[in-house]
């Protein structure tokens, strides 16, 4: 059977790709998608670790994560649309109002 560590390794690779994606992409929508990718990678870890201990709790957690992710996307995309109407861009490098 497949070793647990291999599942975790896949999860780690996907998570890293998502993180790097957040850093290198400038489009807010794509950054969002990368965040979803990272969440997904974590979900994979949850399920793998739970399955290899004959537990169902991991799936319940993933259920919650998916729910939260859905809510996040709904609100996040609404903000994004709003931002676009204000600035006419979704490039996060054009948005630096946080600068002190």
């Amino acid at each position, binding site marked *: 059977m497949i070793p647990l560590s291999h599942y975790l390794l896949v999860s780690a690779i996907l998570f890293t790709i998502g993180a790097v994606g*957040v*850093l290198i992409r*400038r489009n807010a929508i794509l*950054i969002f998608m990368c965040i979803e990718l990272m969440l997904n990678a974590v979900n994979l870890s949850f399920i793998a670790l739970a399955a290899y201990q004959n537990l169902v709790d991991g799936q319940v957690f993933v259920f919650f994560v998916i729910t939260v992710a859905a809510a996040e996307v709904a609100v996040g995309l609404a903000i994004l649309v709003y931002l676009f109407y204000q600035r006419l861009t979704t490039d*996060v*490098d054009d948005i*630096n109002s*946080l*600068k*002190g």
Partner: protein
Amino acid sequence: MIELIPLVLYLPALGAIINAFAGRKSVSRIVGPAVVGLAFLIALVVLAGLLALPPDQRSRDVLMWTWMPGRGLDIQIAARVDPLSLLMTLVVTGVGFLIHVYSTGYMADDERYARFFFYLNLFITAMLALVLGNNYLMMFLGWEGVGLCSYLLIGFWFYKPEAANAAKKAFVVNRIGDFAFTIGVLWLFAIFGTSDYNVIFGKAHEVFKPGDTTITWITLLLFIGATGKSAQLPLFVWLPDAMEGPTPVSALIHAATMVTAGVYMVVRSHALFELAPLTMSVVASVGALTALFAATIALVHTDLKRVLAYSTISQLGYMFMAAGVGAWPAAMFHLTTHAFFKALMFLGAGSVMHGLHGETNIFKMGGLRKFMPVTAATFVFGWLAISGIPPLAGFFSKDEILAQTFNAGYPALWALGTLTAALTAFYISRITILAFFGRQRFGRDVHPHESPPSMTAPLAALAFLSLVGGMALGLPLGEGSLINQFLAPVFTESHVPVEAATGNADLLTSISVAMGVLGIGVAWVLYVARWIPASFVSRVFKPFYILFSRKYFVDEIYHALVVVPAVWTAEFLFKAVDHAMIDGVAIGGAVEVMTLWSRALRWTQSGYVRSYAFLTLLGAVAMVLFFLFRL
């Protein structure tokens, strides 16, 4: 009837409150004098009550309230009613009342009339607290209170720079004395655990042996406080400048009452001072030297009020001399008569200034008796009284002091005092003759006029007191006099050995009278007969003249020794410490450090989301690595 004594204290306080908040001239001119007059009447009632008691029971403490009870520091705000405090109370309220009445005329045109009476009433309140308290804490409260009122009243016309500076000077110089006084009182508190007179004076003989170092230091500290408040050497410099204040203030505070607080304090603490013979000698010597010192300065000054100010310092010196030789009743006697005739002369001077539009130079007066007969006539009583001409008030008290000084075994001090008596008679005659007699030396456009009755009536009353005050209190001469008998219960435990009179009392009296006559005679020769021109005398004694007229250069010496170093220190602190260190290094340095740090860290706050995300991830990776390989 003695229980009425709190009213004496409350009435002026009430008056002060009314004057502070009513602020109307019509209110103040009634309330201001009325409360003090009522207090005087009540004090008379209390006196009657006290005299009804047998002499050995004439000391009562009347509790008013307890301050901060239950913390081991129960401070009783209580009044001590005994002949000593009551005598002072009568002087303060009696003379104070007359001066209040006088002020209604003198200050009539001042737009801050109500405030003036607020200060005056407040002063009376503080002075009565000082006098009536039965513990050193109340005395201290009153002590500081009268100091504050003195400051406020000297600087009443604060828009004049001289007045503002004089007020400041008075306050600062007094503070030096007050500092010593505070230490003395706290030292007593540390030893006895209370500041109550009964406890301290009652136990003093058990706690200290005569001549103990501790009691000597304590009494010296108390006496330094007295030199500040009563303008003795070396802290007298503020009193002449205090003449910048309104003249009724000079009469009330800087002649009759406040400056005598030091004398009163020493007399009140006689049980302590008697345990410190060294301090007693210091007190007597300082008193005698101050008397002579101030009298010599008064010889040559031309400002009417300043001559009177130096005269006050000189007369206070007499009182301390008496206190120093243990002649407590004599000191209080002179305090009382001095209050009469010096208040009279100050008010007379004020009347002259009133008539001459503020002129105080005696060489710009002359012949005023024709224009202001009442002022001139009453001033003559003051002149004769202070010169020690019998049977006026000053004769009795001054003679008593000189005789007791001689009898106590201080012939040198007696000689100083006698010489001072001659000088006193001379300078007072000088100003009297120059101001009221002879030809007119003021300009033709000046039209002197007599003051209103509100001012001349108090003059007449004080002239009457100067005339009969001595006879009433000082007869029969010697131990049996009324004032001695009245005050005797206070000093029953007096431990100064009273030696048998060694001098011939009649001879001593004759000498002091002769000195007075001599002084007046010299003044007559110089200023009336003009056998010798005064300018010739001043040329012959030129070094002395310069020394006296420059006030022994004391102000210059103090300026060089105290003011200049103080200014240097302040400049140093301002420039080196405040400017360079605090502003420059501490505050500026903090700003600089913050700026550098901010500059160094500013680029981390680019405002770009991706940069924050990068740093967040960097931190996360660093933490993962840390936990992996360190733990």
